[in-house]
C-alpha cells in the first residue's frame, strides 16, 4: 500500500519533526487529518501519539477532533482521563467534543466529574444523561451533588428521574431539591418524588412538599402527587385546593 501524501518520503519515527510540520500546515489549510491519523494508527502508532498528545501536539480543533476518532489507540498509550485532559487542554474550542467522546467511552468513570467542571456550561449534565437508568446512576447523582453540580442535577430531574432530587436534598440544597422535584413530577407524573424525599430527609417533609406544590403546572402532575400525600394532611389540602384551580 502506498503511503498517503503527508507520509510520502518519510521514515518514521526518524522524520517525526517533518511529519509534524507537514501535518500542521495541512491542518491550517483546513485539510482533513483523519486519513493521516488512520494510517498512523495502523503503521506508526508512536507517531500518532506524538501528533495528538505529545509536547508539540496539534492544537487545531479539527486535529483534536480527528484524534478523538482514535481514542482507543490513545488510551492504550495513556489510560484513563489523561488523553482526554490533554486533548481538551490543547483546544478549548473542541473540549466539549472531547468530553462527549470521554463520556461515551467511560460513562460511569468518576474522573469525568472533575473533568466536566472545566468544560460544560452545566458541569455533570452530560454524564448524568448518559447514565440515566443505569446501575451507577444514583451514586453518580450523589457524586455530582458533592462536586457542587447542582444546576445539572436540577435539569436532569426534568427527565423524570428522582435520584437527582434526592441527591440535592442530601447535599442540603433544599431549594434546588424542591425545584427538581417539581420538574421530575411534571416530566413524569408517577415519578416517586415523595418516597425518595422521605428516604433522604425522614418522614417529616411536609414543608418541602408545600414548596413543591406552587411549582406544579399540570393537573396530571398534581393529581399524581396527591396520591402520595396521605401522611401530609396540610400539603394534601393545599394541593387539593390548587387542583380545583387547574384545568
Amino acid at each position: 500500500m502506498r503511503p498517503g501524501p503527508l507520509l510520502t518520503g518519510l521514515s518514521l519515527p526518524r522524520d517525526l519533526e517533518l511529519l509534524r510540520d507537514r501535518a500542521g500546515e495541512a491542518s491550517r489549510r483546513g485539510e482533513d487529518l483523519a486519513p493521516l491519523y488512520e494510517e498512523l494508527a495502523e503503521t506508526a502508532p508512536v507517531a500518532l501519539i506524538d501528533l495528538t498528545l505529545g509536547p508539540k501536539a496539534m492544537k487545531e480543533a479539527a486535529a483534536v477532533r480527528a484524534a478523538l476518532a482514535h481514542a482507543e489507540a490513545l488510551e492504550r498509550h495513556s489510560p484513563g482521563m489523561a488523553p482526554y485532559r490533554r486533548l481538551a487542554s490543547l483546544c478549548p474550542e473542541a473540549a466539549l467534543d472531547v468530553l462527549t467522546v470521554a463520556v461515551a467511552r467511560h460513562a460511569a468513570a468518576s474522573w469525568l466529574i472533575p473533568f466536566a467542571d472545566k468544560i460544560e456550561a452545566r458541569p455533570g449534565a452530560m454524564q448524568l444523561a448518559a447514565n440515566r437508568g443505569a446501575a451507577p446512576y444514583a451514586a453518580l447523582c450523589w457524586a455530582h451533588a458533592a462536586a457542587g453540580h447542582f444546576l445539572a442535577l436540577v435539569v436532569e430531574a426534568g427527565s423524570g428521574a428522582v435520584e437527582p432530587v434526592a441527591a440535592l436534598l442530601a447535599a442540603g440544597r433544599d431549594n434546588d431539591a424542591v425545584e427538581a422535584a417539581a420538574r421530575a413530577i411534571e416530566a413524569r407524573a408517577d415519578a416517586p418524588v415523595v418516597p425518595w424525599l422521605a428516604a433522604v430527609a425522614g418522614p417529616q417533609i411536609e414543608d418541602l412538599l408545600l414548596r413543591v406544590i406552587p411549582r406544579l403546572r399540570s393537573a396530571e402532575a398534581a393529581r399524581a402527587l396527591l396520591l402520595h400525600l396521605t401522611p401530609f394532611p396540610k400539603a394534601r389540602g393545599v394541593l387539593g385546593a390548587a387542583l380545583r384551580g387547574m384545568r
Partner: protein
Amino acid sequence: MTSPPRALLLGSPSRLPFNGHLRRVLDCEGARVSVAARVAASSPPEESWAAVSTLWAALDGATGRDRGTLCRDAWERLLRVDRAKLGPGLGADLTLLMVAEDAEGELVSGCGLGLVLAVEGAEARELVDPRHPLLGEPGLPDAVPRALGPDRRGEIYIGMPTGLNVNRPAPPRLFAACGVR
C-alpha cells in the same frame, strides 16, 4: 400533652437513611399515641413507601379512652395488616417504637429495638438494660407486645433498630439523626 413526636427512630448510615421510615401521632379523646417505625428499608424507596403507607393506613382510626386501650388498639390494628404488603420481608424486618400517653402516664412498647434512649433536654440515657424484653429482634409480632411504664414522664424516646451500628450524637443533633427537621 407535649407537641413534638414522642417516638423517634435513628436513621441508618446510608445514602437513604430514612428509607422505609414512618412517623405518626394520633390523638384520641384524652390520649395520644406516637409511632415511629422502619419497614422494608432495604427495598427501593417506592416499595418501602408502599409498606410505610400500609402501616400508616393500619393505624387509621386507632382509638382508646386512655393510654392502655389506645396502645392496645394501635397494636391490634398493626397485627391485622396483610404482611404481604410490608415488602419482601413480609414485615419480618419491622422495627417499631410506640409511645402511648395520657394525663396519668405513658407506655412504651415496640419491636426490633436494639436500644431505646430517653431524652430530656441535653441528656440522653438508656431507658432499659440490654436484656430487657422491650428490646429484641425485628419483625411484626404475633401478639400485642408488653409495654413498659417509665417512671419519668415527658421524655422523648429514640429507638435504634437492632443491628444498626451508628455513632449517636448528643442532643440536639441526635434529633437530626432521626430526621427531625
